């Protein structure tokens, strides 16, 4: 371990300014889990294929296992912990529960973050949009159907509240 190559990285995590010291080769995933104690973001395949490590980086969904920490300097990172309110649940979280879209739960945080990112960019997605948005998140338990139903319902609620 070469101490002298450690960098000081400052960024915004779930709305709060944080500072970490890390090797330039460390990934955002590793920093979030090991250094910042956020285990909601999951370590899956470690090669950007499964999506279990999905977080938002400046509003865009990324596989945090592929993001090297220097890239995060000054950026905004949003994780599942960041969208969970103080009390209650985010509508996506509530909808996933209601529709039975959660089985083992390992893909769930990443899946919800991808859905969250979709709705940020496109508040009125159709089913095709939803399927595409979560196509980078593998799930082996649920078969995706109830997740698509859950995201649809949140989109529908958004549509209705917009009509006010």
């Amino acid at each position, binding site marked *: 371990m070469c101490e002298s190559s450690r960098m000081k990285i400052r960024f915004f995590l779930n709305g709060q300014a944080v500072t970490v010291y890390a090797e330039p080769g460390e990934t955002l995933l590793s920093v979030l889990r090991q250094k910042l104690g*956020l*285990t909601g973001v*999951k370590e899956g395949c470690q090669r950007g294929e*499964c999506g279990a490590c999905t977080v938002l980086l400046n509003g865009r969904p990324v596989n945090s296992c592929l993001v090297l920490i220097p890239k995060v300097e000054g950026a905004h990172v949003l994780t599942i*912990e960041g969208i*969970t309110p103080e009390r209650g649940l985010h509508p996506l979280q509530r909808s996933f529960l209601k529709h*039975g879209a*959660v089985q083992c739960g390992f893909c769930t945080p990443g899946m919800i973050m991808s859905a969250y990112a979709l709705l940020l960019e496109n508040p009125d997605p159709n089913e095709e949009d939803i399927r595409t948005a979560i196509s980078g998140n593998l799930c082996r338990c*649920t*078969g995706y159907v109830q997740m698509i139903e859950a995201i649809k319902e949140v989109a529908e609620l958004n549509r209705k509240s917009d009509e006010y």
Partner: protein
Amino acid sequence: MGNATGQWYRYIGEKVENIDGYDKVTGQAIFFSDIEIPHMLHAAILRSPYPHAKILDIDVTAATRVPGVACVITSEDVPSTLYGPQRPDRNVLAREKVRFVGDEVAAVAAVDIETALKAISLIKVRYQQLPAVFDPCEAMQPNAVLVHDSAPRNIASFSRIVRGKGKDGFSECDVIVEDEFTTQRVHCLYLEPQLCVVDIDKKGNLTVYLPVQTPFLWRDEIARVFGLPLSKVRVVQVYMGGAFGGKLDTSTAMIATALALKTGKPVRVALSNDDELKYGFHRVPTKIHIRIGAKKDGTLIAKQVRIVADNGAYNSLAPKIVCTNMATRSDCLYRYKHVETEAYLVYTNKVPTSAYRGYGNPQITFAQESLLDELAYQIGIDPLELRIRNIHSVGETTIHGWQIRSSGLAKCLREGAQMINWEAPRPRFRGRGVACMIHVSGNRGKLDWDGSEVILRLHEDGSLVLLSGESELGQGVRTVLAQIAAEEIGLSIDDVKVLPVDTDVSPFALGPYSTKTTVLAGNATREAAQKLKAKILEYAEQMLSVPRAKLQVNNGKIVGADKEVSLKDFMSWYHKHEGRRTIIAHGVFEPGKVRISADNDFYGDISATYPLAAHFAEVEVDPETGQVLITRYIAAHDIGKIINFEGARGQIFGGVVQGIGYALMEELVYEDGTITNGELSNYLIPTSMDVPTIEPIFVESYDPVGPYGAKGIGEPTLIPVAAAIANAIRDATGIRFKELPITPEKIFMALKERE
């Protein structure tokens, strides 16, 4: 919601949210891969690069000298006792020889994974390569090299089962069809790869964080192999990222235990997804030669099967999967008169094969249901009609002695056919297929006692704690048990806490596999809850001076004769009068006494219940590309009685999508003993883009043994998928595809060849 029996349930059959759901959607849920213990060492494994070789010597000197390495172990540092979940034949670390590419040869525990990997790279192993066998048929030849000296002709297991006149029964048939079907290696690919964290204290007590489906069995196995008393081994579980049968076996546990014992420190051994794909465990690949004969009116008479299955280098669970299950299960769907099956399980120098959702049933169902359609075409009758005419009815006993106490299969077939518009004309390259399945739910098979015990404990504040040895894999067993407890006692489900499995605390259960937990643990919970309620009312009678027959528990309150008291206040009274003791009740359920093996010729009513299903697929084949588009998919399941509505739907969607992967997409490809596509980027599983419209149909047949009439559904949802799709492709193209997966390339080539 009422039902056919007129019974009203608050929770049973309803949409009840997963009790673990909040933890999971908020990211709070701690999974095995999240576990960190102070001073925990990280391990790396050195694996064999050769499929078959003698280990001449191993030099670990350079590896041990790497700063930060706590220890390096080889077979000399671990017990020589063989381990395995069924027929132990595997060393903790390879001894004398290696038998597949990936066989574990050495392991390193170090301060971090980078150091461990560095040390691994410095271990020098001298091998003497041996000729290897990869094809089971070749491996069975008399002059083939032996994978295990103890297994002549590399036969790991064999069974021969004859009923009635066996193959002589074909003399009674008017029409006979015969063909050979091939199924491939796949991986269940749960998202959280296998790992094990073993913690150890100064007295050598082990706490093993092990994501297996059978925690008690692995506690026993670790104790046995390492010569430890059971009391020194404690398996503790947290949330698990999927299992599907693949976590019935584990190699990480043994290595982690060895390292922890050697170093006296906690050790973590973790695989990656790529390790899983390349090194284990895979679904048993098969070559199934099958012959079915019938009368010209479509009455099924005789069936003959010869299975040659690939065991891989070590037994894992394949012996029973092939020689018991594959050899009998599909026969029990129909009223065959004569059956003869030979099943060969053969050692090869490849990754060990094991359990994956269906436990042999998907493979044999693919063969049988495919060939039945060919039989139907030969006879000139509708494949649907052929099935309807021959399926067992309630009250019948199958050819292997299964007693059908409930069956909704005829209804599944009729309703599914109606929903998919079975008879409607279809254009060229569009087709429909049907496939049935029968499975067990609550079967005997393992030990002298195969049951499940549940303990309920009423807390001081009137809430409930449920203890069970059934692991939560994501299938929702904890929610189902909480529903049953809440229903029977009269509590709110929000007041029921189901504790995770801890072998020092939880009562014994084999664990979830074979689709058994709803029946076994469900019935056990029901019994415990009824007993607990009886105890509550016995004391409430004293407290309220109301005869217990007039008392009920509703929504956490004891009510009767115009009196009402919360369970919380009841418990306060109880403590004042009986002392500060807990109220506890036990419930136990075990399947019937029948276990099958070669000793009783595999005959017997082995399961408490038998779930049934019929799947219908409608496909459109693109002749330009060979791509298959599934336009509709109907999964009709006789579930006995739904316990959790969204949970049951989830099992259907999940199983069907896994089945689509099996039927059309997935295959682990071997070249000279090495897997060439052992990465997630090359081994493609279904994504959200691959999911068709799936329509579940639930038929409730109210089984007399299952809790509230329920039968399990976990494995059944995958079992008939490949056959239904293959039959639909046959209808669409006129071509019978007999080898899984049915890829676009295969379809394209076959269509081209036909032109």
